[in-house]
């Protein structure tokens, strides 16, 4: 089954709508940048970046959000940001990617188009549901419902800086998810700097763009 999906040995991490015929090339709207970014092992990050433990979450999520938007603006000619508030009243729903893989997120209601702050109706909205930054993360531990209760061992060392992002390309005109996926990016961790974080966020955006193109049916 998974061979047919064109993905790894055991999991299928993405799903396309049968009517997903054309990926957005020039303009895209994005939402989720305010609340999607989360850092695991925050004290480890705080120590490395020399930022106080209390403010590490807020700091990194702002930083990642900015880096994400910057890279997105490099990849697309026009990027519209829709604040998370526009989505917060929609109920949280699950999308099934594989037999045991479910991703959660807020999706607009059927029959309702989402407008940006200027009142325009964007054709495509990239909804970032969760963006998890950490070390040596495995996406199946977050999205396979049989594994999510497993406790990870306490680790002293880390090989990779990793980012897991779950997102949906939303057809705003017909209110349907065109492409949904969970991506994982790993980057060898030498000495953590802010530059490493912006690099992993940037490669994550590039991967999203590649996958959106590859996912066209």
């Amino acid at each position: 089954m998974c061979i047919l999906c064109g993905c790894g040995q055991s999991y299928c991490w993405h799903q396309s709508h049968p009517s997903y015929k054309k990926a957005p090339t020039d303009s895209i709207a994005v939402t989720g940048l305010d609340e999607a970014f989360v850092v695991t092992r925050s004290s480890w990050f705080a120590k490395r970046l020399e930022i106080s433990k209390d403010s590490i979450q807020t700091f990194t999520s702002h930083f990642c959000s900015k880096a994400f938007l910057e890279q997105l603006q490099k990849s697309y000619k026009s990027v519209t940001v829709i604040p998370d508030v526009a989505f917060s009243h929609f109920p949280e729903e699950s999308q099934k990617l594989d037999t045991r893989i479910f991703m959660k997120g807020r999706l607009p209601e059927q029959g309702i188009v989402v407008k940006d702050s200027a009142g325009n109706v964007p054709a495509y909205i990239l909804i970032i549901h969760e963006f998890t930054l950490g070390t040596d993360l495995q996406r199946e531990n977050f999205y396979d419902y049989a594994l999510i209760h497993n406790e990870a061992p306490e680790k002293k060392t880390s090989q990779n800086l990793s980012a897991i992002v779950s997102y949906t390309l939303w057809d705003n005109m017909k209110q349907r998810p065109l492409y949904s996926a969970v991506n994982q990016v790993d980057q060898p961790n030498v000495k953590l700097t802010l530059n490493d974080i912006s690099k992993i966020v940037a490669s994550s955006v590039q991967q999203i763009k590649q996958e959106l193109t590859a996912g066209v049916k």
Partner: protein
Amino acid sequence: MKRFILAILIFVCSAFADNVFFHNHWTLWKDADVLIWSTDKVPALDSKEFCLSLKRNNTGIGEPKCRVFGEWERDSIAVRYSGWLIANMEGNVKAEHLRARHPAMVAKIESIEDKLILFIGERDGKIYAATFDENAAEPVAAGVFEKTGDKIALGDKIAAAFFDGAAKRRLTKEERAKRMTEPDESYKEVPGFQGWAGVAVGYSQAKIPLTPDNWYSSHTESRVRNYRITKDSASLWNFIDDSDPQLALYAGGTWYGFIGAELMYRYAYHKVKTDNKDTVYQELSYWGFHQHEIGINVVLSRTYTHTKWFKTTPFAFVGFQYSFFVEDIGLKDDSKEHSKAYDVRIKFEDSYKGALVGIGSHFVFFNHYGLGLRAGISSRGRNIEEDPSPEAAAEPTTIGSSTIDCFINLGLEYHFSM
């Protein structure tokens, strides 16, 4: 010529214009309330005419009552979903892509009970239709139809596309309430009683595989001289052929997928192993025995379901049987008088009693059609229920008091469950 080709093209296009995207199984209720749900200003269907179309198309549908589904046409959540539905109905979608996501809409669909809902709407000059039942928040069937001014013709087409098949009687309120409390059939792992009946062909032989030949050679190499003389008479295989095809009929059942019983009948024909060197047989045309066996087995089994349509049930059985050997002998037409030895030829017991033990497996396809493969060992011995004769000590030993063979057979089976 061009016009002709154009006319053909138009004809071909119109033939393919009606298209059913998907049609999943649903319960078609007899005498149903059919609710026509449309958000168009002028509905493409006339409810009275549609009822007549239903009756014309499917005589088993009873007396359906059709009406416009005003409750949903005035409901803002249903209106929003219907607008979304009409925009999203495309040829390549499956039912899951048209699922209602709003919790209130899901609840509405789940509460329609035994009514049949037909959604109908117009987009780009075509009529899109979908049906809903209470079981899922997604359409059961969907399709697109060419728009014509003829509402009756459209109704006929929709009725033929979506409302075919056998209709079921609607449940009363009490039956419906009772059904709600019943456990879901899908969760029932094994039926209370699983039965089967089958007919099998097979083969039996005295030599049991993987055992030394010399255990059997005294029986299998034995020949009957002068109608009755053999080296010993412990086994019937001293007298008759020990490897022959057989036919079996059997029927049985298991309770709770574990323990069961089976009745069986087996038939085989064995020729007598006459000694060709013996001239006394020159008068003989044929000589053999019909073997009839009836028995009952206790079966222990376990069912493994591999896919929805295929399961295997390995089993072990042990039982007892009665064997009857009916002699079939004929002399050549030209032999006027038969020998004395013919008159005093061997006689088998009236019946033999024995046991059989073995293993096998049923391979069941689509819950009903099966193949059965089994192998085992069976024995035939003296029927100890006979009263011992007063001259028992003086009587010769019973012929075939220890007749053992092994068998394998393959059967075609029909399975049913209760």
